[in-house]
């Protein structure tokens, strides 16, 4: 019997169902994910069908490609930053089966479409079909439907190709830096587009936005979503060209994915390659612990965390993604908006994003945590050392971000106060994240891809991140208000107040979470080492 794509889809659904069996918390998360998906789907449908219902052709021509392009970008960046990729069908697991690559590729692709995100996107974009039908009748609707389906295929192909390619690149040491640069470059390329759009929107210059979108509609980002409207406007001749753009992009992405898929499959069997370097004559403790850390339990734990944030691909990917996002986001927002206020809110978001990386801090190493359990590490030392190990990387990065943000808005005097805000937000977010990491840990699959999540895991990750973000934003609101009310005085006291606020929040979070961890150590170990 020939293996077909539907077998992969069935396998994925079976894995999902088995993963939910007998695990109430996962069922709750899954239902919540479906609900959020439904909400997104129907609000998207409403927004996209609105210009059609009102019978307005031009707004539709702006809204549909623009909204569609945002959806594509969402598919590209959200898995990298928030959700990870549902890789319950890890390509490496198929390495031993006699499957032609094309079959495998088709199957994995079909399976990646069988999920809440793809279905929600489809329902939302059906609103575009509705709009096209209202504006141009049956022919336009049919064309738009074809376009929308092409668009979703494009989204999935893009998301798969990029995460897989990035993951492959991250695995080897030399390519890693290249991948960082490439990712940063991509993010940087988005800048001009966003700048144009934001600048135009600021001046409420719809004609300006319209011009940008008209160009956008000819790129793979916007082409799939605008086909039906071209028919409605009597430009049916351009549809084949746009179809070619879409199909061609999907083809290219699949070709790229296919290449990195091969490497992912071989990589799993071949190991990560020997990384032997010169032998070291230093005594073991000096090899582990840098000179400025105490040679104690805390020092050992923190030093191990530091090593892990760099040596483990999953964590390294998190770290790199955060750095790139953290540096580009404030710049984009600061240069895009014409209001001259320092981008404090954006920095709070970035700091919370940094802390969110720890939301599943025990899940990263899985069963290896047993070593700490056997040694009986107290919860307070465990949590504080993990925070310290991560902060070694994050605190300088956060300061750099505050510096950049301050310079971009052309107010160097605001840098200390901005640093205060960002440190406060980081401390607060850590306090929010610590209990989450103890109570809501989840296992990560033993996969070759640093973005891989087991079924349902993506929802957990996304939801926990969101909770932490909201929590941190609310908890730093007093500082934002103080900054607003105090004006110039804040520039002087912002840094010490922010530092104290962040440190206080962290200490409180630690004080409250450590006893919880002490009580739950075996349960936590069982949760993160579950591979069944």
């Amino acid at each position, binding site marked *: 019997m020939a293996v077909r794509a539907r077998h992969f889809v069935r396998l994925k659904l079976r894995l999902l169902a088995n993963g939910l069996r007998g695990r109430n918390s996962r069922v709750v998360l899954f239902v919540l994910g479906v609900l959020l998906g439904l909400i997104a789907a129907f609000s998207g449908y409403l927004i996209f069908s609105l210009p059609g219902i009102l019978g307005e052709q031009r707004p539709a021509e702006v809204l549909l490609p623009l909204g569609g392009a945002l959806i594509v970008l969402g598919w590209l960046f959200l898995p990298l930053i928030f959700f990870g990729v549902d890789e319950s069908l890890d390509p490496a697991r198929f390495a031993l089966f006699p499957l032609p690559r094309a079959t495998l590729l088709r199957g994995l692709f079909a399976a990646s479409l069988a999920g809440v995100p793809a279905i929600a996107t489809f329902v939302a974009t059906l609103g575009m079909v509705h709009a096209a039908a209202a504006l141009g009748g049956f022919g336009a609707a049919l064309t738009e439907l074809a376009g929308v389906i092409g668009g979703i295929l494009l989204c999935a192909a893009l998301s798969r190709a990029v995460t897989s390619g990035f993951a492959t690149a991250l695995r080897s040491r030399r390519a890693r830096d290249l991948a960082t640069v490439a990712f940063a470059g991509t993010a940087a390329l988005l800048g001009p587009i966003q700048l144009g759009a934001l600048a135009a929107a600021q001046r409420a210059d719809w004609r300006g936005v319209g011009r940008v979108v008209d160009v956008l509609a000819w790129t793979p980002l916007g082409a799939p979503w605008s086909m039906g409207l071209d028919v409605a406007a009597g430009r049916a001749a351009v549809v084949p060209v746009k179809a070619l753009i879409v199909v061609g992009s999907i083809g290219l992405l699949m070709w790229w994915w296919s290449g990195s898929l091969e490497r992912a499959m071989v990589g799993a069997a071949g*190991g990560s390659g020997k*990384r032997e370097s010169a032998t070291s004559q230093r005594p*073991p403790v000096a*090899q582990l612990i840098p000179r400025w850390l105490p040679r104690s339990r805390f*020092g*050992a734990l923190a030093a*191990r965390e530091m090593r892990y944030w760099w040596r483990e691909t999953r964590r390294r990917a998190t770290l790199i993604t955060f750095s790139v996002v953290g540096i580009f986001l404030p710049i984009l927002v600061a240069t895009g908006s014409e209001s001259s206020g320092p981008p404090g809110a954006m920095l709070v978001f970035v700091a919370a994003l940094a802390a969110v990386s720890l939301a599943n801090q025990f899940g990263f190493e899985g069963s290896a945590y*047993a070593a700490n359990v056997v040694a009986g590490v107290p919860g307070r030392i465990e949590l504080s050392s993990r925070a310290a190990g991560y902060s070694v990387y994050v605190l300088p990065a956060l300061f750099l971000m505050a510096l950049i943000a301050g310079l971009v808005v052309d107010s160097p005097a605001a840098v200390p106060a901005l640093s205060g805000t960002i440190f406060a937000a980081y401390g607060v977010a850590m306090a929010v994240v610590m209990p989450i990491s103890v109570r809501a840990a989840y296992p990560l699959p033993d996969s070759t891809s640093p973005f891989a999540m087991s079924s349902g895991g993506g929802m957990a990750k996304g939801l926990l991140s969101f909770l932490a973000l909201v929590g941190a934003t609310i908890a730093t609101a007093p500082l934002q208000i103080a900054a607003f009310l105090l004006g110039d005085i804040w520039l002087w006291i912002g840094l010490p107040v922010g530092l104290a606020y962040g440190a206080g929040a962290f200490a409180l979070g630690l004080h409250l979470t450590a006893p919880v961890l002490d009580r739950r150590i075996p349960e936590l170990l069982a949760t993160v080492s579950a591979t069944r």
Partner: protein
Amino acid sequence: MTVPLQRESPDPALALHGLIKRFEAKVAVAGIDLDVPQGSFFGLLGPNGAGKTTTLSMAVGLLRPDGGQARILGYDVWADPVAAKSRIGVLPDGVRLFDRLTGSELLAYHGLLRGMDATVVDQRAGELMDVLELGAGNRTLVVDYSAGMKKKIGLACALLHAPRLLVLDEPFEAVDPVSAALIRGILNRYVAGGGTVVFSSHVMAVVERLCSHVAIMAEGRIRVHGTLDRVRGDRSLEEVFVEVVGGRTATGSELSWL
């Protein structure tokens, strides 16, 4: 390395009473009572899925039992975990090490985690790396070690703080004969010096060669236990094992297509 001095005390090295563990509907361990005398070399035998790993995990504080008690040298593992855990060295099976560290870093990590002095850690870690032929200056990450080397570095981590009791889950699995002989030698010396070893295995030859005491587990229960000679009688341990576990013997008619 220094072997701890035998302290005369009436408590068994490891005492399990009525340990129970259920996973969802399945009962993995169905009430285990076991005393491991101090200074013994104790083999826990059983077929795959008998509950050996589950039992040992509960005994060392990695897995919370649904019922029953585990005491190490008189200290309750679940009521007084710090006192109990500081007296044991554990080599879990099927558990990852912190494998993004080099061997030396991993040993230093374990030593400091146990609250040892840095100079003692340095000295013992170097010695262990040397004796176990892992190469003291080797900068290879543990993740790139072979399966046998991983077992050896795991054993080194368990030995580093010179515990009174060693609990080893499948210490000889995936280990080549040369390394196995080395490990046997180290463990024999450790027991001769007054330490106690509890290990699980399903390799009869190893158990017969090493152990003073054995227990055979099947389906979550201890079926037979006692000194090796008492359990074995005048038969081979393998015969006793197959009889106790109730294995199926091939008649030769199955799998005729092979």
